[in-house]
């Protein structure tokens, strides 16, 4: 398959960032690093997390194999215009809380089907203050709320990130691009088909307890009790999820022991994520098998330049090669039947990390906290604070 990809790319004049390329990495990590992801562009990828690129004000969404063939053949796609869904997020994220906790809260609030048929625009002062990497984490998980695309209006944070990157415009073209990009904001009087408001100041470090990203709750809470469900469907949903996850109703989330920790993926495999995990790794030693998988060769190199790999290795974390790895149980990187993993990835679906595996989605610092305690743990208690 790899050889075919290489020969076909050569034949058709595509630039391939292949397996031995020094800039190889995950589809949603590499193009932003290279300056290929630009505001106002239309991007599609044969992967549902293509929504990540919306962090730059690009309209970006995942497509299947037939649609990919159609794009390669005709440079076009047949699409129905999605509804517009504005999610406004204001307030200051509390100590110990990250963009990952924020988007898990959004998904818990609107549901895994909350944005089906919509393209999301995230706005508000919390969003405006996020770094590009944090914005990518938010937009990345739009699809976990059912939204094929999720985007943020381009601003100075985007321009500062893009300037000087390999494929970014230069000179006079940069000025023209900035002029265009600056115009890509929603009008004040713009009407949306659906709206939601989220208070960032009420976010706590989140973990998922079930088998859908909407099964997310603050680490300080307990697993739900099916008896409290308001409908028959909800009761069945909670029962099935708890049964698969081998958890009891009303179990405190910070008492759940894990077998494995995974830090990486297109959601949380960037340099800021690794820095956050390393800060916590410094506080102890891994009690369970812990993998750190950078999102790209570039991230790996940068982390090594900063000495992060030493921090991880000193704490007994495994420093591995870039790729999707355990997020989707690919190329043999998978959990054994029944194993439980604290994971910075994006999907806690049944069997996502290997047949019979159990996944708890968390932020990078929460994952590192789970690594050094062997439990899902409130990272704020380790870091001292609230």
């Amino acid at each position, binding site marked *: 398959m790899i050889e075919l990809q290489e020969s076909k790319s050569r034949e058709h004049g595509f*630039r391939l960032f292949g397996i031995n390329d020094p800039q190889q990495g995950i589809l949603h990590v590499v193009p932003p690093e290279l300056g290929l992801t630009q505001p106002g562009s239309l991007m599609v990828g044969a992967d549902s997390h293509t929504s990540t690129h919306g962090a730059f004000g690009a309209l970006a969404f995942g497509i299947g194999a037939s649609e990919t063939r159609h794009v390669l053949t*005709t440079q076009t796609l*047949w699409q129905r215009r*999605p509804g517009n869904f504005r999610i406004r997020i204001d307030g200051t994220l509390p100590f110990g809380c990250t963009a990952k906790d924020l988007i898990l809260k959004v998904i818990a609030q609107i549901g895994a089907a909350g944005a089906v048929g919509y393209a999301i625009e995230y706005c508000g002062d919390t969003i405006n203050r996020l770094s590009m990497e944090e914005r990518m984490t938010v937009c990345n998980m739009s699809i976990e709320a*059912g939204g094929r695309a999720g985007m943020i209006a381009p601003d100075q944070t985007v321009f500062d990130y893009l300037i000087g990157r390999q494929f970014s415009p*230069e000179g006079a*073209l940069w000025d023209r691009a900035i002029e265009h990009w600056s115009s890509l904001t929603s009008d004040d009087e713009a009407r949306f088909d659906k709206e939601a408001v989220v208070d960032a100041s009420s976010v706590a470090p989140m973990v998922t307890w079930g088998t859908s990203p909407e099964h997310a709750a603050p680490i300080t809470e307990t697993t739900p009790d099916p008896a409290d469900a308001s409908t028959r469907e909800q009761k069945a949903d909670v029962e099935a999820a708890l049964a698969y996850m081998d958890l009891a109703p009303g179990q405190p989330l910070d008492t759940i022991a894990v077998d494995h920790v995974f830090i990486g993926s297109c959601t949380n495999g960037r340099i800021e994520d690794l820095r956050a995990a390393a800060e916590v790794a410094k506080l102890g030693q891994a009690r369970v098998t812990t993998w750190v998988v950078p999102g790209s060769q570039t991230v790996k190199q940068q982390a090594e330049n900063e000495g992060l790999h030493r921090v991880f290795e000193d704490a007994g974390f495994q420093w591995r090669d870039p790729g999707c790895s355990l997020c989707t149980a690919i190329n043999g990187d998978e959990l054994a039947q029944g194993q439980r993993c604290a994971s910075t990835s994006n999907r806690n679906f049944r069997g996502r990390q290997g047949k019979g595996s159990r996944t708890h989605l968390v932020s990078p610092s929460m994952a590192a906290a789970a690594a050094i305690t062997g439990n899902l743990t409130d990272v704020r208690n380790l870091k001292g604070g609230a």
Partner: protein
Amino acid sequence: MDAFTSLKAVAVPFDERNLDTNQLCPTRFNKIPVSDPDYQRILFNNQRFAEDGSEHSDFILNQTPYRNSGILVADENFGCGSSRESAVYALLAFGIRCVIAPSFGDIFFSNATKNGLLPVQLSADTCDALRQLLHDSPGREMAIDLEQQTVTGPDGSRHQFDLHATLKYRLLNGLDDVGVTRQYSQSILDFEREHHAAMPWLFTQSETAK
């Protein structure tokens, strides 16, 4: 792709909300070619089969009345998650030609229509009622008429569904998108010329940086 006109087949109920494409096709099967004679075994593989390949007898598709299912009646957000088209191929390989649900994952919906798998959207209440009927008398048939845009339930109840006229036309005629799009070649070229002039930075850098 195969045209879809009408279908009368055994219908199988799946009550789970947010049934994701990882269940329809676990990741490890993504690289299996569709031509594989055992392709249908990919569908719900983790739940249908034990390690040794034997069937889990309690899984619904392993129960006698449902082995020949051609229609699947689901709940909200069916096919959410990964964009893998193998989820659609696996359903088709098993013999499912139509999925009925209150809503679908957007990418799954597109993938289905490109392969002659008909996604039918009916209200949550209607889907609930249909699934209940199917649970009450396993192995009952349902019917789909795409021309009339109707679903006939196991109790003979008729339900009208919406489908975009373009999609309907292509499904009814088994038309390939690429062939249709090629009729617009000149418009596409015109657009590309304008786009190139309006946003030259998208092109010059990528050309010189090779």
